[in-house]
């Protein structure tokens, strides 16, 4: 009987822990999205995830445009120790990651090392285990002059960080990292793009296409209603979303061809992004304002 009562107490305790760790997972079950067609479907879907582009994806279009390196658009790595709250540290992890993704493209080795050092410090203060944060960065330092290895290691470090935080019930912290990276990427792209330069058309289009990712970013944040600081970014992003309503993306569905031998499906749709200069300038201004708020200490 005594053994039974002890077991019952222990099991009840574990049950409570299980409930808490499920909290964030279940919180998105009630999210509505414009892509959910009807209530019946919504009730069958147990979990909805939202992804935003990684800073690496965003930065690749910058390189193709032939833009020259501009160090002035980056966030100073020297201020890393001024960020003392967990949320700001997580935001800056994302911000510096975006800066490093940009720096990597132009093979600015010394600058990359500086950002690496700041990222390592942030991984340590956020309590990312060494083998998932700092150690991966030590590998990066050995491959610092190899652009392709840098790509792999940047993506591995961020994947490991995201995975570790979410596995340990810190999904809100992971969302701060993603927010920092996405806003910084948008900021960099909008600062360097010249609307009047035809060779920057791809960057301008990519900025316009963030219309989709912005909605996903807002949904990501809304999944953690209990985190008031995270929720404070919803309104500025909603303001930005209002401006993005002026961006018109004309989409024409095309054929879908599947090659089973290559395990490849190609979608031959066509989309035209229309973004007026005044809309671009508004996006640029708002992205800068949100970024200023993110990086202030």
């Amino acid at each position, binding site marked *: 009987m005594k053994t039974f009562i002890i077991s019952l107490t222990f099991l009840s305790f574990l049950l409570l822990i*299980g409930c808490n760790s499920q909290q964030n997972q279940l919180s998105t079950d009630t999210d509505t999205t414009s892509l959910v*067609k009807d209530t019946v479907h919504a009730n069958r879907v*147990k979990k909805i*995830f939202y992804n935003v582009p990684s800073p690496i994806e965003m930065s690749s279009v910058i390189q193709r445009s032939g833009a020259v390196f501009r160090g002035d658009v980056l966030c100073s790595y020297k201020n890393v120790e001024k960020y003392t709250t967990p949320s700001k540290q997580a935001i800056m992890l994302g911000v510096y990651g975006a800066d490093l993704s940009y720096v990597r493209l132009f093979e600015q080795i010394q600058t990359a090392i500086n950002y690496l050092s700041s990222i390592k410090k942030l991984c340590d203060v956020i309590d990312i285990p060494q083998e998932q944060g700092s150690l991966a960065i030590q590998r990066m330092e050995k491959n610092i002059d190899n652009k392709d290895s840098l790509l792999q290691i940047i993506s591995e470090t961020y994947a490991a960080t995201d*995975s570790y935080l979410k596995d340990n019930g810190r999904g809100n912290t992971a969302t701060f990292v993603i927010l920092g990276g996405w806003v910084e990427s948008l900021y960099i792209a909008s600062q360097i793009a010249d609307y009047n330069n035809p060779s920057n058309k791809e960057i301008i289009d990519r900025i316009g296409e963030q219309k989709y990712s912005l909605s996903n970013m807002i949904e990501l944040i809304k999944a953690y209603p209990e985190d008031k600081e995270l929720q404070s970014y919803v309104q500025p992003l909603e303001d930005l979303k209002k401006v993005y309503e002026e961006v018109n993306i004309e*989409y024409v569905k095309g054929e879908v061809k599947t090659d089973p031998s290559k*395990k490849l499906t190609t979608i031959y749709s066509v989309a035209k992004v229309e973004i007026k200069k005044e809309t671009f300038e508004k996006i640029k201004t708002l992205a800068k304002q949100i970024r200023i708020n993110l990086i202030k200490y």
Partner: protein
Amino acid sequence: MRTIFIILMLGLINFSGFAQCKGFTKKECVPHIKPFTYNGQLNMAVLNPGDIAELIVTFYKGQDYRLFVCSQENLGKVEFKLLDSDRNTIFYNKEHDLVNYWDFHSNATQQLIVQVRVPALEEDLPVVPSGCVSILVGFKE
């Protein structure tokens, strides 16, 4: 008393599902996304037979992507579809022997839905299995 004990044990097995998935994606799934670069965002849930999970993601124009759906063996082979924003099916793995990954190339930037479904049980079991399911997105620079 013993009945209550057994019921609590079964409840614990279900609720601790999320704990059992710790590290699952990193160990069992991420290595398989190569040679694509993982987008770094963990999309992992504990699902039961018949459950559906969805991922809303943007595919950029001219870029190559890999979708990899990773799941624990006790759930059986998991189905996945790629849907457009009107929920039309672009790809369904059931038409390709329930493969767990597929590559995509899009000529236009668009918002897409990856829908994952755990097959329903064919017979009633005393304990409903639950397991980790992860959806990974990789891209090529």
